[in-house]
């Protein structure tokens, strides 16, 4: 009996989205529990799928029982197994913690909001698990359209920044579609494994080169890689908090996974790194992106906009790590992708519970936060330490691997950029903690009563913080058992 | 597939495309965009893609133009560029 886990992993959130939207109209109180059970089942099935992949190696699942190049086939290996587990856990935790803010802001259209959030999770899961190039485009569009609508719910400037995101996102997605079209006209197939085998023989053709460039530009545009990042700071800052805490940790990381899947598996490491010779150019570009991201993050006054700009730095790490070309660099990039999902989730959830308590998010109005909201600030400290890369947390191990990869590949400018941006992140977060801990503004004189965020927000936040530390401690086992064998042979 | 007919329709499509971007009145842009979609639908019908032409006619020329006109009705027809 072939295990139906790959199909369950995507169709369960899809059916839950329909159930949540229908519940919005029939009995609004049911929306939250329906979504909770759906995401719970998805999380469990994706962890079971990861376990199955670890034992039985790559799992393939034919949709509609049509064989590979004709029908659509799901291919789950260790790389997307671990990313699937990370996405579903992150979505499950975010769902619990954003309940209070969704109920307060969107009570009259709660079914629609929850339905779109679940469709976004479906899109993210589907992009990760699919083995068909065009199916990836359709799921990319689902994740994008739901992201446009969720971001535009912020009010004030949100629709304008969402419309800019629509324009840049559509151009990125349709460039990817055009690249798939170029591949299809030259090879005749849409299945990724089939395409990869045909492309081995067409190393020298111009059309494949242009297809590679278009697809990479489209994916970088959707990812928010440095020169193409114009939409990201505005979109995530003006979005409402439940939308930001869901979209920020997932969208850019899933697109980073798509880039790795295409570069390492579809076009193959020899082609994407060797033939074009753009390997060094991209690593230089990534170092520039890291520095630019740090400068942008330094110049921000609003806390929410600052942590959004930190995402730009994280993306540049992943692109640089992938294009380093050697084994430890790529392993570092994949492990950083998984860590980054949880790090970003932790920091965004912490700041959203600050915002939920109507705290001023301005940098220099943070007095007495440690005394008022100790648990939230504790989790924020853990997330910050992980982003900076301090040993017990998982951020350190992935950055260490990236550093080792850069050293072996001889890209010293990428190492300098890595260290510099870690220091900048340290400065950024220390500025916040210094004001929050030592601040003696007029607010903290009055009372030291603990006005913590509601329990529903604090408990998931603490779980994520503990998860970051646990992931850090287990990083040796995670890397050796899951990520190390996930790399294709070609990565020398 | 008479290539002269194909060429004529292609030039018409390009003209409608440029026209709907250059025209100063948004309602005019919406109508020209509807004409552009209809020309595209005829082009695909000639190329043998009947299902796609049917969809483009009903979705592209039909409903998109109604959405454009509805949106322009609630905003302005005035454009600067």
């Amino acid at each position, binding site marked *: 009996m072939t295990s*139906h886990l790959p199909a369950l992993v995507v169709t369960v959130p899809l059916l839950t989205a329909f159930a949540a939207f229908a519940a919005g109209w029939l009995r609004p109180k049911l929306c939250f529990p329906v979504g909770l059970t759906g995401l719970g089942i998805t999380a469990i099935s994706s962890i079971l799928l990861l376990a199955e992949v670890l034992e039985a190696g790559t799992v393939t699942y034919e949709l509609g029982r049509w064989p590979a190049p004709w029908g659509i086939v799901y291919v789950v290996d260790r790389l997307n197994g671990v990313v699937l587990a990370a996405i579903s856990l992150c979505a499950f935790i975010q769902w619990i913690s954003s309940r209070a803010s969704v109920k307060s802001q969107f009570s009259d259209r709660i079914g629609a909001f929850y339905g779109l959030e679940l469709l976004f999770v479906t899109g993210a899961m589907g992009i990760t698990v699919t083995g068909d190039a065009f199916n990836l485009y359709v799921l990319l569009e689902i994740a994008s359209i739901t992201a446009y609508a969720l971001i535009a719910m912020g009010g004030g400037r949100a629709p304008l920044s969402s419309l800019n995101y629509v324009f840049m996102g559509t151009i990125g997605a349709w460039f990817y579609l055009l690249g798939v079209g170029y591949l299809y006209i030259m090879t*005749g197939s849409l299945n990724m494994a089939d395409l990869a085998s045909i492309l081995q023989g067409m190393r020298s053709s*111009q059309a494949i080169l242009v297809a590679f*460039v278009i697809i990479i530009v489209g994916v970088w545009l959707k990812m928010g890689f440095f020169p193409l990042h114009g939409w990201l700071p505005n979109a995530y800052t003006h979005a409402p908090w439940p939308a930001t805490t869901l979209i920020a940790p997932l969208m850019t990381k899933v697109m980073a996974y798509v880039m790795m899947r295409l570069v390492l598996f579809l076009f193959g490491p020899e082609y994407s790194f060797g033939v074009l010779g753009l390997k060094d150019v991209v690593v230089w570009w990534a170092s520039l992106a890291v520095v630019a991201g740090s400068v942008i993050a330094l110049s921000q006054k609003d806390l929410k906009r600052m942590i959004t700009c930190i995402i730009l730095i994280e993306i540049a790490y992943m692109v640089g790590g992938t294009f380093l070309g050697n084994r430890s660099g790529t392993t570092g990039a994949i492990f950083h992708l998984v860590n980054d999902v949880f790090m970003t989730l932790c920091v965004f959830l912490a700041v959203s519970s600050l915002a939920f308590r109507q705290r001023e998010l301005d940098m220099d109005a943070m007095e007495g936060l440690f005394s008022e909201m100790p648990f939230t600030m504790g989790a924020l400290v853990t997330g910050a330490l992980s982003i900076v890369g301090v040993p017990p947390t998982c951020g350190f191990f992935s950055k260490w691997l990236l550093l080792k990869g850069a050293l072996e590949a001889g890209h010293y400018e990428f190492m300098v950029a890595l260290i510099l941006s870690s220091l900048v992140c340290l400065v950024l977060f220390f500025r916040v903690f210094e004001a929050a801990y030592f601040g003696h503004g007029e607010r903290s004189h009055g009372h030291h009563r603990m006005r913590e965020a509601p329990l529903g927000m604090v408990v998931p936040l603490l779980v994520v913080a503990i998860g970051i530390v646990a992931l850090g401690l287990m990083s040796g086992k995670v890397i050796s058992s899951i990520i190390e064998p996930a790399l294709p042979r070609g990565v020398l | 597939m008479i290539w002269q007919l194909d060429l004529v329709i292609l030039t018409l499509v390009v003209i409608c495309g440029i026209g709907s971007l250059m025209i100063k009145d948004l309602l005019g842009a919406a109508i020209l965009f509807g004409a552009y979609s209809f020309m595209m639908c005829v082009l695909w019908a000639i190329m043998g893609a009947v*299902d796609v032409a049917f969809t483009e006619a*009903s979705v592209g020329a039909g409903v998109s133009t109604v959405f454009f006109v509805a949106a322009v009705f609630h905003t302005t027809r005035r454009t600067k560029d």
Partner: protein
Amino acid sequence: MRILGILVCVATGAMLIWASGEFPPWGDPNSPASLHVSPRYIEKTMEETSVPNAVTSVLADYRGYDTMFETTVIFAAGVSCFMLLRLFSGRERSSHHYRHILTGLTLRVRRKGKQLPELEEFEPMDSLWTPYDLILRTLCRFLIPFIQLFALYVIAHGHHSPGGGFQGGVILGASMILLAISQDMRSALRRIRERTLAIFSVAGVAIYAGTGALCLLLGSNFLDYAALSRIFPVDPVGARSLGIFLVEVGVGIAVMATMIVIYHNLASEGFLDEGL
């Protein structure tokens, strides 16, 4: 911005044209695209799915998973427009307009709050967009049933002729939009209330995903219609054709409801009282 736009377009265009030099000549029967995967669709469609229209069989069966997510995309667009624009508190009007049905005399009642109840000789009239044309209204009232009949034909006949779920669904939606434009939005909403539209759009997509899940429950892979032959009295090939038809009906319902929801929200800026 203008120079940046020109620069980017010329660069991308040059790159694309440089690459198109290597394409197989236009319309060449043995280009890779026509030799690698698609011959099986054409030759085997009658034998495996008994559906002569190869596009419908590939759309709903060989690559049925794409179409399920495509229907989810249009559903997501409908939900987004509802969520973005819909405002539940109505527009406060200082005065209401009524038209005497027989003579066409218009009456302006200065009264705050809700509309007056329905009167025999008078019918409520939009105060925002008030053109009234007897010829247009009666012609549209005459035309709409035939449009809907044709749309049902298009959905049902997707196997043998061009057409299918999407095209039929859009035409059904267009007939309701025509009603909303020729009469006024209130009468269109009286035909199909907003709540039923929402339930229809969910039901349509749920039919599609439900058929797939049903095949899963019957032990076969997701969206493998041959499994339907266990519960329906058809052979596996006939079961595929039946599965395709079920899916087309689901898509038709979902697309119809979504198009109307998007139009209602766009045309009345979310108040759903007066539209185009």
